[in-house]
């Protein structure tokens, strides 16, 4: 497990990164759309802290946190938003579609639920090639109602594959609250329909997430198959750029902000004597500097060559 301050710093980095992206969008510096993971930082950070270097992740539309926590370079990510040649996808993918196979990040996915079977496929390869690694899939409460989720979980169960299903239940799929989208309050119970364990995890407690993933990973590596972890959290931002959030109250958001994973972990680390206000201020300043550098890198990077537009469809 990474040390506590590193994890705390990563959560702050994700938060600042998302806030910066939102600002750049509203200033018109970057185009398209984006799905911030503000408020959900403990899930990716907690998950990635439990993973080994060979493990593989498939991500969804709300994947900046996943990528950063797995070691994605903020500069190359930022450059992707700016549509620059140095972006992870050279401007072709944008917010949802970046990947770095080298660090086991198999990319985001614009199709809700699309990345669940691919994670199971990565787990299939791992088992087939007898490599000691697991696949991890990040998906939302909304994606849990896609058919691909059902099929992928059942396939993983039948073949006893080393995969950890991480459902980030942030209470909403766009504007739709979980209660209006699923017949059960806890999506974790669905694991029983496939014959593997499902567990509700406090997704705003980074250490609880790491602990749960650690056990699930052990299970997977020892050949006992998949686990579903439903990490309950809250998306503090809008669903995507320009979401007026008419479907919930500002009061609900304010309450959630008070128990956000960064607020909570800061209190924990302070209580443990690992952090104090000056150290936190330093850390935040350092993170801000890192994000500013990422933006500068992106801005200073060249645009892709339009002459290459038709290159790369096939090998």
């Amino acid at each position: 497990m990474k040390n506590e301050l590193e994890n705390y710093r990563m959560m702050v980095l994700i938060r600042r990164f998302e806030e910066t992206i939102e600002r750049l969008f509203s200033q018109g510096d970057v185009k398209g759309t984006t799905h911030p993971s503000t408020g959900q930082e403990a899930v990716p950070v907690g998950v990635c802290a439990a993973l080994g270097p060979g493990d593989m992740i498939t991500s969804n539309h709300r994947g900046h946190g996943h990528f950063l926590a797995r070691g994605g370079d903020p500069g190359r990510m930022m450059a992707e938003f700016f549509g620059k040649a140095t972006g992870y996808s050279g401007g072709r993918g944008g917010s949802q579609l970046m990947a770095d196979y080298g660090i086991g990040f198999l990319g985001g996915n614009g199709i809700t639920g699309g990345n669940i079977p691919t994670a199971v496929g990565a787990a299939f390869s791992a088992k087939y090639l007898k490599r000691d690694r697991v696949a991890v899939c990040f998906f939302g409460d909304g994606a849990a109602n896609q058919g691909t989720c059902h099929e992928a979980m059942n396939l993983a169960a039948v073949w006893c594959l080393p995969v950890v299903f991480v459902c980030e239940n942030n209470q909403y799929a766009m504007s739709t609250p979980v209660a209006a989208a699923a017949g059960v309050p806890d999506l974790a119970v669905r694991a029983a329909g496939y014959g593997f364990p499902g567990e509700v995890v406090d997704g705003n407690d980074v250490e609880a997430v790491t602990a749960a993933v650690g056990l699930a990973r052990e299970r997977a590596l020892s050949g006992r198959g998949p686990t579903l972890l439903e990490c309950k959290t809250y998306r503090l931002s809008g669903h995507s750029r320009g979401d007026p959030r008419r479907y919930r109250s500002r009061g609900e958001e304010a309450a959630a902000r008070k128990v956000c994973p960064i607020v909570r972990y800061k209190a924990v680390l302070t209580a443990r004597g690992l952090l104090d206000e000056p150290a936190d201020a330093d850390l935040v300043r350092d993170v801000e500097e890192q994000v500013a550098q990422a933006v500068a890198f992106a801005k200073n990077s060249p645009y892709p060559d339009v002459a290459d537009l038709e290159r790369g469809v096939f090998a």
Partner: protein
Amino acid sequence: MSERVISYTDALREALAEEMARDETVFLMGEDIAEYGGAFGVTRGLLDQFGRERVVNTPISEPGFTGLAIGAAMTGTRPVVELMFMDFLPLVADQLLNMAGKLRYVFGEQAGCPLVIRAPGGAGRCYGPTHSQNLEAWLLHSPGIKIVCPSTPADAKGLLKSAIRDPDPVFFMEHKMLYPTRDEVPENPDLTVPFGQARKMCDGEDITIVAWSWMAALVDGAALELEKLGVYADALDLRTLVPMDMEAVVASVKKTGRLMIVEEAVRTGGVAAEIACRVFERAYDCLAAPVHRLTLPDIPISASPLLEAAALPSVEKIIDMALDLVDG
């Protein structure tokens, strides 16, 4: 009697509201169409007006709720389903191809399926590879599905009303770039626009230009520019692809001898190929030059504004190709 000027989005909403008021069996279903009003605001306000029973938010289950809508359409209701992006058509393609489109042919007259699927296609907003596609060519190759693709607010309203009243499954293609466009739209709730009648956007003798949806709007603009350059285009907005008004296209080609088709989709296997092929079949002798297709290259659509624009047809590219064809 002067017409009101409203947006394409408002025109669609008006059509939905009027048809819901007219026929209680019409209901709306889709992701985030209630409080949120749909990703592009088309259904905004309809929850308040018609209630949760008739403006139904769905879980994210495109194949499931499309299949559900087919079952509903088979049994006495008229579902109007919103698919958040046309890129998700593949998720419901089985339901459309293997069920909705075959029901009447196989089960006979008992098996009506008055279903409308609305979905915005198209690029131009930098939404990237999986939120920018036009896939109507797949449906063109799927018997039993009508395809409607309005390019103006008035057509958006009139064609959506026709779609909802139609006894057969209709895929109703909207476009992200068209939503904010504004124009005159009749208020009369009895007015509809019939399927299968192309709209002549511009009259000319030099070249026929055929398009639909957002590309028709671009062609409309390009035709004006061409006129300034002394090139007179006969510009047609097809409005519906199934049924397709080949009479209008062929008549125009017989007049101009030159045909150009503008399609916002990858080139290979697109709708333009079918149109060109039909023109060759019916008006082979009248063509003074090869048909020109202006399309996307065979690539995914990038998120970057630069790469997206480079791939897409534009007014400039239309003008250039038209000049080329007329000179050639």
